[in-house]
């Protein structure tokens, strides 16, 4: 896990336990003409860390983050990344979008703005011979990528899948969400009564999935996705699409709603997204299950969101603890939700992770501790 909270998982978990957010005021005219709040990766730390990368300067910032994140992940397991039975999957919405800017001076060829070019450069760094897969499906990319990895392992197409997700807090993205008036004036407050929009974050996170347990007890047990078929930039007003995605994931995992211990929800902190989620979770009868949004810690990290939030959920399961939904004080959704308001120890065996995004898409995955 790499975000404003740190460069590895341990640093993230420590901050999550202390309910410490990485979102800060940002007054960088190169990113947006007026001050705003964002979750930005520590640049001086990245400049130190990048010496771990061979020929670091021949990679973009996002490629460096991917390389560092994958290195950190695979160093913890015994796996041959150069095997033809190991697949790299990239989850990103915009990839190296910073290369398109007129004022870009980094010297990397603009063709690396093609998402598959970025994926090839990074998988080649690790000597992997397989054509990498790129999932680019708005904010549900990460959840879809993990579900796909599970499917491909179950279908015996690969033994190991390295799923990595990353996106930058680029001027491109910030200006676009600002034009939608979707960015909070303060710090995003998922599910809160005064929530007024998202906070953009940048992150890169990697999950290693394997047919062999490799010491892990966490299983991706089911997945599903759907489309609201309602609006390209606004969520469903009823929550029907998200409900269907969750039902498919639960059916595949053979999990009843009463088995779920924790919901790692999308929780962007826009008025309509959080409203939609409250309706879907009530329909599913899981409104009393403890729920959080990790966006209050590292913002909305787009293509990284599903990956970093599933990674955080896995730590929640391993440690049997629930993290506060940062930024939340008073419930402000039309239907009730059990938003986690403080750090707590609790047995966490089954997690529902959800995501929703532009294009009307929704995705869900079920994690089970076995």
């Amino acid at each position, binding site marked *: 896990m790499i975000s404003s909270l740190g460069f590895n998982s341990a640093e993230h978990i420590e901050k999550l336990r202390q309910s410490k957010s990485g979102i800060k005021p940002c007054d960088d005219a190169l990113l947006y003409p007026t001050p705003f709040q964002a979750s930005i990766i520590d640049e001086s730390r990245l400049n130190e860390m990048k010496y771990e990368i061979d020929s670091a300067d021949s990679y973009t910032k996002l490629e460096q983050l991917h390389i560092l994140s994958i290195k950190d992940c695979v160093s913890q397991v015994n796996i041959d990344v150069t095997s033809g039975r190991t697949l790299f999957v990239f989850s990103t919405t915009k990839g190296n979008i910073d290369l398109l800017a007129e004022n870009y001076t980094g010297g990397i060829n603009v063709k690396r703005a093609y998402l598959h070019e970025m994926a090839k450069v990074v998988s080649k760094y690790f000597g992997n011979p397989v054509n990498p897969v790129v999932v680019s499906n708005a904010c549900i990319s990460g959840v879809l990528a993990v579900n*796909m990895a599970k499917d*491909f392992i179950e279908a015996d197409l690969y033994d190991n899948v390295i799923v990595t997700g990353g996106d930058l807090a680029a001027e491109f993205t910030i200006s676009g969400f600002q034009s939608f008036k979707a960015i909070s004036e303060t710090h995003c407050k998922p599910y809160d009564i005064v929530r007024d929009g998202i906070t953009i974050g940048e992150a890169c996170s990697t999950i290693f999935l394997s047919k062999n347990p490799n010491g892990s007890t966490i299983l991706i047990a089911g997945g599903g*996705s759907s489309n609201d078929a309602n609006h390209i930039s606004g969520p469903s007003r009823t929550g029907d699409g998200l409900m269907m995605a969750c039902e498919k994931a639960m059916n595949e995992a053979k999990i009843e709603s009463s088995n779920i211990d924790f919901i790692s929800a999308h929780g962007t902190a826009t008025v309509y997204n959080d409203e939609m989620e409250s309706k879907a979770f009530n329909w599913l009868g899981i409104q009393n299950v403890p729920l959080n949004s990790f966006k209050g810690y590292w913002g909305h990290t787009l293509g990284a969101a599903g990956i970093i939030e599933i990674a955080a959920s896995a730590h929640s399961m391993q440690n049997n603890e629930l993290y506060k939904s940062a930024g939340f004080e008073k419930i402000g959704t039309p239907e009730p939700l059990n938003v986690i308001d403080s750090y707590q120890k609790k047995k966490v065996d089954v997690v529902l992770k959800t995501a929703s995004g532009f*294009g009307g898409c929704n*995705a869900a995955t079920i994690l089970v501790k076995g």
Partner: protein
Amino acid sequence: MSETLKIVSHSVIRNSSISVNGKMDFTSGEKDFKPFIKGAFRHYDLKYPKFFKMDNLCKLAMIGAEVVIKHSDLGNISKERIGIVLLNRASSLETDRAHQKTIDSRENYFPSPALFVYTLANIMAGEIAIKHKFQGENMSFVSSDFDAELTQNYVANLFATNKVEACLCGWVDFDEESYESVQYLVGVNKSKNTIFDNQTINEIYNAK
């Protein structure tokens, strides 16, 4: 898997022509994309004003999907069980470049939500879903080349795990005025239809 997956119908759009199931369905003397696709929109008499708000990628995807769906008997399959799995090379880069132009200069700074929303590859699936009310599985891949195997692996698994009963699939790419749409609808046990496998998909893609 016990059931055999079939390609119910397919469409190919390139070089100002649209073919359906291997037969020419519409051709235009317009070499440029915009007048060509507008001509196709009129030819198929779509009556869908939202079309004119879309970017080029979505217009291409819409027309390609429209003709495939028109030629597919979906029977009584629930629209919640129809998926959309698309793949392309340039993601939404054509519109990304347009959005970038609106922010490159502080003196002439005009980012617009109507444009920005199209800076995602999966918006074309969203537009198709809205038009046809398909609420099933969604997936959007980016790949350097038409990758029949990736789509085949992914979609066959959606059927095997009972997540879809039909799936609109294909390659829809738009980049610097070059465009290509190859879409096909995959379903179960339509005995007279073509079998859904890598070879068939590649044949459809490579047909002149």
